[in-house]
């Protein structure tokens, strides 16, 4: 298997093509622009569709149309653009359409800046648009994992008829790392017999829709969605625990922040502090099981994020008061150093 050196955004694009993505619709925004540029170059050569939409709103609705027509489809953007897509994401969830949405997060609120951030966690994991719904959220922390999770994202989307978000950040999108595009056996996925392809001899018409005027019917529909979300929560939560075997303290971080936090954990280890790292890979469903696993021996948790504290709420919900939960974050595109986090680990030990 050949190793190639690639930028995160371009590796993601290549992985999408290999995962069978037929259509891409997007709108230019920094720091994800290499992704659409790669697909603009490659899609026409490899039998796919690349279309630059007039807006983020149009792009996500093009995704709706193509997903409803039964093909694998993706869009990508960065924070302010993802805000604009929320209407479409709500409709996609209501109509149960599979698709992959990439958010290479940057600093906010408003126009913010173009530096890396993790401040769209609430938006990504709590729905983001109107209505009772959830999207699956995957948070890679290396270019290789980004590639691997793209295949999973398309499979999960088709499996559950639900949008899947890949939540990256400006560093992950921009940095270069060696990657291998592994051949993967195709997963057994349900047939898309619901897709609007034209009746083509079919008796009944297929309809893609999120309108249920009768509240009894809408409640039934939402309960059906809820059951699906419960199944996803039971089956799809993923995480990694590093240096956890003898650990008494745990840092919790995801994405690029977990890479930095891991370096801090190594420093603390050298200093004799028994600390481990919990790295959630799915942000929704949140991997509560990771905390159950370590709680018998954990004295305290330190959540580190590129935000002023968003995932920390899920950490607290998982720990349920059984141990102290501390927080350290930088915001607005600032990234903490391993030394800064190391200092926080020392503080945690001192406090508990």
């Amino acid at each position: 298997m050949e190793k190639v050196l690639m930028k995160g955004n371009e590796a993601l694009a290549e992985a999408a093509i290999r995962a069978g993505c037929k259509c891409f619709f997007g709108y230019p925004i920094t720091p994800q622009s290499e992704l659409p540029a790669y697909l603009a170059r490659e899609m026409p050569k490899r039998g796919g569709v690349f279309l630059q939409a007039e807006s983020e709103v149009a792009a996500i609705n093009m995704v709706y149309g193509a997903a409803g027509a039964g093909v694998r489809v993706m869009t990508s953007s960065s924070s302010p653009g993802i805000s604009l897509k929320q209407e479409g994401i709500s409709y996609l969830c209501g109509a149960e359409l599979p698709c992959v949405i990439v958010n290479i997060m940057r600093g906010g609120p408003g126009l913010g800046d173009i530096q890396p951030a993790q401040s769209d966690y609430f938006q990504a994991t709590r729905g983001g648009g109107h209505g009772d719904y959830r999207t699956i959220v995957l948070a890679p922390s290396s270019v290789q994992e980004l590639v691997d999770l793209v295949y999973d994202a398309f499979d999960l989307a088709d499996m559950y008829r639900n949008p899947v978000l890949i939540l990256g950040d400006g560093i992950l999108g921009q940095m270069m790392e060696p990657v291998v595009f592994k051949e993967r056996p195709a997963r057994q996925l349900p047939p898309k017999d619901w897709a609007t392809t034209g009746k083509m001899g079919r008796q009944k018409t297929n309809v893609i829709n999120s309108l249920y005027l009768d509240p009894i019917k809408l409640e039934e529909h939402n309960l059906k969605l809820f059951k699906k979300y419960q199944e996803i929560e039971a089956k799809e939560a993923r995480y990694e625990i590093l240096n956890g075997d003898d650990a008494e303290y745990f840092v919790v971080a995801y994405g690029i922040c977990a890479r930095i936090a891991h370096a801090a954990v190594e420093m603390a280890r050298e200093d004799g502090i028994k600390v481990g790292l919990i790295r959630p890979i799915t942000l929704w469903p949140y991997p509560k099981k990771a905390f159950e696993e370590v709680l018998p021996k954990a004295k305290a948790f330190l959540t580190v994020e590129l935000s002023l504290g968003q995932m920390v709420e899920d950490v607290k919900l998982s720990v349920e008061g059984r141990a102290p939960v501390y927080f350290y974050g930088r915001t607005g595109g600032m990234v903490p150093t391993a030394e800064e986090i190391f200092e926080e680990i020392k503080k945690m030990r001192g406090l508990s």
Partner: protein
Amino acid sequence: MKVVFERPKSLQPTKTHYCPGCGHGVIHRLVAEVMDELGIQDKTIGVAPVGCAVLAYNYFDCDMQQAAHGRAPAVATGIKRALPDRVVFTYQGDGDLAAIGTAEIVHAAARGENITVIFVNNAIYGMTGGQMAPTTLVGQKTETSPYGRDPQMAGYPIRVCEMLATLDGPSFLARAELTDVKNINKAKSYIKKAFEMQLLGKGFSLVEILSPCPTNWGMKPKDAVDWVKNEMVKVFPPGVFKEPKEG
């Protein structure tokens, strides 16, 4: 016995929710007749709007998607790009197409997106109870222009066909009035032409139909038809605004 009149195959055997005297039922029928005549029912995907025609997916007997408000041309673009050999149409009202969905319609037209748009212009928001639309006439009273549309406050109506005719993308743009048999037949001939353009791969086609809304105009059905004929056509002149050159 010879059948001289029947329900088009491309319409579902169901009652519609449209008000008495509303133009939507007639326009649905025209679209369905054209689908039957062109033999495209089986390979057509329609996109329903938000507005009075939101339930169009219950009425057309073909695969349908329901789009967010104004986004039907983007949704149709997604379908058509994914399945280029199928026939894709949107069915949209004036609020959906000319207010909240202005960007989507203009850019679908500019791209020459190979879809067909049925644009129902009744100069008012019907479903929400009669508010001012982007095509509401100057002086026209609505729930949100109770003293009549005042250009100083609320500007002027948008002429969609004329605006889109400035673009190179569209292959066929026409406006008809739903007022009498002659004009209803003309509307149907435009709709047929629009679908034929798509089948020939000529790019974006749109038919605007001036349609009565007696309920929200506060008129009897016959008076509403007269208002289309006497008032709307003055602001929105019927005719063909763009068509391919012969030869």
